[in-house]
């Protein structure tokens, strides 16, 4: 599989990372090397093998539907880039 400049720009959009044309060229060269490495996986016969996501194959626990967190709004908003009246400020979304 070969990666194109268009692919790089598309995945950068999906990942919400701005890339200039010059950066995309550079990233493309490096990603091609990495994908050549990853490509080795295609040759492995994994028929009948279950995907593994946890060593002990544990299933995620469910907890009681109860409030466990206390109100930390002030503490958390003290480290936010922009807040006003308890709200996080971002550029206008709805005209």
């Amino acid at each position, binding site marked *: 599989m070969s*990666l194109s400049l268009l*692919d*790089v720009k598309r*995945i*950068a959009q*999906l*990942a*919400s*990372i*701005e*890339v200039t044309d010059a950066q995309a060229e550079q*990233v493309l060269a*490096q*990603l091609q*090397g*990495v*994908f*050549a*490495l*990853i*490509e*080795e*996986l*295609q040759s*492995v016969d*994994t028929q009948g*093998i*279950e*995907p*593994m*996501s*946890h*060593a*002990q194959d*544990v299933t*995620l*626990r469910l*907890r009681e539907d109860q409030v466990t967190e206390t109100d*930390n709004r002030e*503490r*958390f908003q*003290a*480290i*936010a*880039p*922009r807040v006003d009246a308890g709200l*996080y400020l*971002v*550029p*206008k*979304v709805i005209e």
Partner: protein
Amino acid sequence: MINWSLRQLASALAHKQVSSVELTQTFLDRAQRYNRELNAFITLDPERTLAEARAADRRIAHGNTQPLTGIPVALKDIFCAQGWLTSCGSKMLHNFVAPYDANVVEKLKQAGAVTLGKTNMDEFAMGSSSESSHYGPVHNAWDLRAVAGGSSGGSAAAVAARLTPAALGTDTGGSIRQPASMSGISGIKPTYGVVSRYGMIAFASSLDQGGPMAKSAEDLALLLNVISGYDARDSTSLDRAAEDYTRDLDQSISGLRVGVPKEFFADGLDADVASAVQAGIAELEKLGCKLVEVTLPQTRLSVPAYYVLAPAEASSNLARYDGVRYGYRAPEYGDLRDMYMKTRAQGFGEEVKRRILIGTYVLSHGYYDAYYLQAQKVRRLIAQDFQSAFERCDLIVGPTAPSVAFDLGAKISDPVQMYLGDIYTIGVSLSGLPGMSIPCGFGQQKRPVGLQIVGNYFQEARMLNVAHQFQQATDWHTQMPAAFS
């Protein structure tokens, strides 16, 4: 005093031969003096640290001592510690003062430890050399021209140069073991799920595991006693009875079957590392271990499997950095979308962006089955290899890394070369097994070599036993770089 074990320090503190303030000041002075050369710490805050030391001294005066009361411990900057800058080595979190403590930080505090400072690391733990930090590279304490290893390179360098008695690191694909190896110290990554990930900034959640880095296996065991244990706030934390990891330290290791995987000694292993590791294995044989040749046929595939799975998980985990709730926000932007794009372009470094892009791609429509699911299946094959090997042996030993520490800058422009260096550690990570590295000699240019010890699930006490017995018979772990003595 700088070479004392944790037991010796605890005893001196309990018998009031030294106060926590004196002890802490000694290490703080060293950390401040040598940080210019090593760049091992991102943050030192002597006032905050000494306040903790004074509080520890008051507890000691009241006879109220816990295992680590008054002993300074450094934290990799990936662990949230309330009131401390917690940057994770990234510009993205250059102003993030953690509003809460990680579970392991809570546990260290309950055990009486004093926070010495926050150590340097690869940005978001993505790297094997601690060069991708926004705060500049860490230098190796044995040779300042070399890398300290990574991603927990700051913790490794700080312990190696005796700027702290011990430190915490994290290991996703080898980030405790490889810097321990390259910096000539001891480090252990426990079984996945033994140490809580709560408050540990996420990289690849199915692999991330915290663990101690110290001068000896005995110190590691004491620290693991403190930081391990079930935590409901980590969904993958394992609910099991507490263990005393020091319980087997003094056991004989005679008769233990030690597996040596032939794939770990194939092409790609440097001769100087091979000979130091072989000598280490011969020492284990002298102590009565029986050597068994084992095979881990999928070793080569662990690298590509890891470099699909870890970036995939990272791309998801790092989606949270959007410049809205905390951390960096681009100074200039148009609409909301533009704010995200610019914030992430400016806030993340090259390696982090590269991994996010790889992860985004392998998870994207049309590629998920071919890459992500296939890598998860290969992951199971790798884990099965280890289980087959453990039918024939009690522990597996081999090199931690294929080379000694390389020169700063030598691999930074070639990510694939850097990734291939993780070959002996990432299979262990993918399998969720415990792994550790202890010093076993020196290679080229007198740079340290590490011996990796891998156990089956929950065999940490056995691994620490072997490491401790090795360290009773050898003195590699007591050596320290002359420039910092």
